[in-house]
């Protein structure tokens, strides 16, 4: 990316780029990588299918299956998975609730929850990381202290304490979660900002009188895009894992709202009688996280400037 080529015939406007816009080259790189790697393509397809299913969950359960995820049906307790009516493809639990419907809705809940947490993570992490990396000095020391403190407390323990002490709604829980997990993003952004701040176009912008905020938003932030995109996938995966563990313990998403984690809470006590309850939610979690990791890896390979020709 050049600030101004010597042969440029445009008028002197210090803040325009003559090279390709950074975000556009990012998108191109991603498309190129996905079309080359079959595993990555499969991962993307699976995640897209998942998103589609999650978004259309009310449609599927309401119209196609005509069954609510919370509908208790005491005539159909602990049904084995059968090939008959679609509703009972995955069987039912101890309350007669269709596992298939709960699985679909659980995916929706898990995905929305993770999306909310990751949004908070990115917002807080990018903001704090950029500020720490840009201004350095005392501000950086304080931010480092906060990050080191938060990182040292095992997240699961902190979340359990928060869940029990504040009894938060799912949205509030997502906020708490975001409040303690932004540190990973912040560290990466801080490191990247450190080096980006030394680039010539930043010095040029500063010399032209641009204010700090403008420099951060207009010059540094777009170049953070590759790292942010890469870490988003992995972040969503790790939030899904932690949320399902918390819900399994009974402290995350509360029943009757289905979540892949809390579908497994009581499955343990029915291991003998109804072993089929244990399999679908766990497989879904594993598959989703696996695909997100593959996508994250692929994105990192696509966007890592050192690997470009």
């Amino acid at each position: 990316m050049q600030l101004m080529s010597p042969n440029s015939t445009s008028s002197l406007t210090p803040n325009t780029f003559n090279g390709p816009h950074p975000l556009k080259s990012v998108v191109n790189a991603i498309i190129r990588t996905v079309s080359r790697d079959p595993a990555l393509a499969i991962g993307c397809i699976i995640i897209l299918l998942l998103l589609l299913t999650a978004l259309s969950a009310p449609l599927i359960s309401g119209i196609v299956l005509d069954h609510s995820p919370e509908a208790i049906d005491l005539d159909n307790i602990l049904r084995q998975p059968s090939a008959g009516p679609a509703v009972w493809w995955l069987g039912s639990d101890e309350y007669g609730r269709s596992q298939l419907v709960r699985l679909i809705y659980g995916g929706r809940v898990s995905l929305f929850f993770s999306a909310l947490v990751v949004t908070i993570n990115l917002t807080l992490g990018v903001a704090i990381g950029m500020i720490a990396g840009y201004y350095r000095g005392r501000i950086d020391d304080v931010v480092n202290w906060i990050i080191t403190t938060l990182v040292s407390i095992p997240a699961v323990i902190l979340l359990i304490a928060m869940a029990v002490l504040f009894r938060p709604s799912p949205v509030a829980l997502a906020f708490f979660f975001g409040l303690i997990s932004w540190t990973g993003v912040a560290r990466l952004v801080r490191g990247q900002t450190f080096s980006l701040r030394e680039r010539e176009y930043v010095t040029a912008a500063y010399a032209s009188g641009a204010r700090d905020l403008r420099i951060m938003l207009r010059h540094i932030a777009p170049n953070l895009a590759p790292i942010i995109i890469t870490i988003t996938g992995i972040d969503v995966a790790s939030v899904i894992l932690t949320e399902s563990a918390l819900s399994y313990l009974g402290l995350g998403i509360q029943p009757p709202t289905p979540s892949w984690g809390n579908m497994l809470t009581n499955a343990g006590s029915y291991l003998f009688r109804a072993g089929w309850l244990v399999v679908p939610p766990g497989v879904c979690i594993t598959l989703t996280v696996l695909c997100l990791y593959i996508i994250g890896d692929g994105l990192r390979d696509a966007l890592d400037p050192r690997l470009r020709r």
Partner: protein
Amino acid sequence: MASYIARRLLFSIPTIIGITIVSFLLVHLAPGDPIDVFVFGTSGLSPEDIARLRSQLGLDRPIPIQYIDWLSKLLRFDFGASFFAHEPVSSMVFDRMGNTLQLTITSLALSLLIGIPLGVFAALNAGSVWDHISRVLAVAGSAIPQFWLGLVCILVFSLWLRVLPSGGMYNLSSGGTDLIDRLRHLILPALVLSTTSIAIFSRFIRAETLEALRQDYVRTAHAKGLSQNIVLTRHVAKNALIPIITLLGGSLERLFGGAVVVETIFSWPGMGRMGFDAAIQRDYPVLMGLIVISSVLVVLGYLIADIAYAWIDPRIKHS
């Protein structure tokens, strides 16, 4: 070296203070009073009695004063007494800490014993089918939720195959002295706990070994006529393994968090499960003490890892 250790110790102090602040604020910002839990179930207490109890316990003082008081008690290792067991928290925690450390240390050992060979093997056969298989296994290992893996393991090994017990630390009848019995109880929880670590270590070792194999000194060694085995053990191993120390220190946070879930599933009588039970019961002193102790152990882990790293790589302590 001593000055490096002193410097690192000094830098740990603000972190530990930060941990105490977080833990304290958590409990005191939560809705409801510790006093409500303390008097829960006790009938016949008039509002005056409750107010008197509150001032007796010092809960009506301003928050910063309460914090300083709690902190000074912490420095004397006085974590207060449990609301329910009426025992000092410190003795409760230290009783159980040994059990959790058994689990954690075994997990670490397993991750090293399985992860390192896996990584080296993948690096030596880079690009082959085995390399791809081990990479898929590694990624899958970190994608499987630990609690689900625990459930499935109990299903397979305890209910179907009936070779391993499904919980607890040892058979009550044998009184805990039978080593084989103890190992049988330990193997499943330790393996489940180490899954993520195995995945991370093996991928890391693979990358490090590949990097080390590309170095010039390996070329020289081969040119001198040394066999692959000697090159690996004498030259590559030392350089590839140094960063593992940092990974080890960093895995403590993951292990203590994971221990909570694993201990609950396998009914392991450890610190993690005690924390979970205390949380459910709203036993604040135990909860706060556990947060502080676990976090301080994590900080200690990072500290020891840094010091070991500096001891092995002399360039670090002079930076």
